[in-house]
């Protein structure tokens, strides 16, 4: 259930990074989500889609890399430079 808050934080991180690159367009965000993070991948994907839809970030793709610990990180962005 807290995946909506998690997705909100992810998008804020994306916006912060995007602000450092005026004119550039973020195409994809890569997350690292550990088995012990307590985060459900399906709920996170769903929340992410709902939050992105119809915003300036749309279409923003999400790639989730699973790991074994309690990681919950924004690992990278794919950016189309201006």
């Amino acid at each position, binding site marked *: 259930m807290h995946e909506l808050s*998690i997705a909100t*934080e992810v998008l804020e*991180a994306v916006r912060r990074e995007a602000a450092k690159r005026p004119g550039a367009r973020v195409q994809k965000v890569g997350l690292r989500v550990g088995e012990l993070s307590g985060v459900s991948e399906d709920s996170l994907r769903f929340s992410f889609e709902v939050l992105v839809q119809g915003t300036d970030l749309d279409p923003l793709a999400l790639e989730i890399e699973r790991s074994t610990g309690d990681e919950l990180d924004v690992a990278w962005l794919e950016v189309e430079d201006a």
Partner: protein
Amino acid sequence: MSRVSVEQKVLSENDRIAAELRESFQRHGVLAVNLISSPGSGKTTLLEKTLAGAPASRRMAVLTGDIQTDNDAQRLARFGFPVRQITTGGACHLDARMVQKALDGWDLDALDLLFVENVGNLVCPASYDLGEAAKIVLLSVAEGDEKPLKYPATFFKARLLVLTKTDLLPHVPFDMARAKENARAVHPEIEILEVSCTTGAGMEQWSRWIELNTAS
């Protein structure tokens, strides 16, 4: 198209506030513990028994989280210790900002021990550091001994597992040895206590655990 490394925690803002809280608890000599469990495992009852059995001179307080009501705060306020309610208004967990806000104006120098009772939920609270010294997970014997394997994040992050409602053991198919085995499979160093708030069995060990950790 270029790939840019970001490498930051998703909950970095929560973690930043939690680090401030942790520093503040340490500076004021307060042991803060974060109680996590499913709804109905007995967090509030364990706290009631703990407060009821404590001398009035005990410098402790409770922050209790609830989605909607202040029932728990009312139950806990009867014992004369400071209690504050955090109503999350729908959120399924407490986060560090809520705790920081709830502590506003509280004199931490007057406290040695702070219980933070999280929202009843065995999943989401595990993701949010509240600046506590230890997470404590409660699991009642009515819930089933496989729970540590189904909800590993909480058991992995908890320092202590309190198995509650042990007076119900004769009536439920709960295998105590298997429950402990499952908890240790997820978290080999987890400490484990067995408690019944109804009979009082194990309450002494629980109090001793708290005393020991408050003193350290």
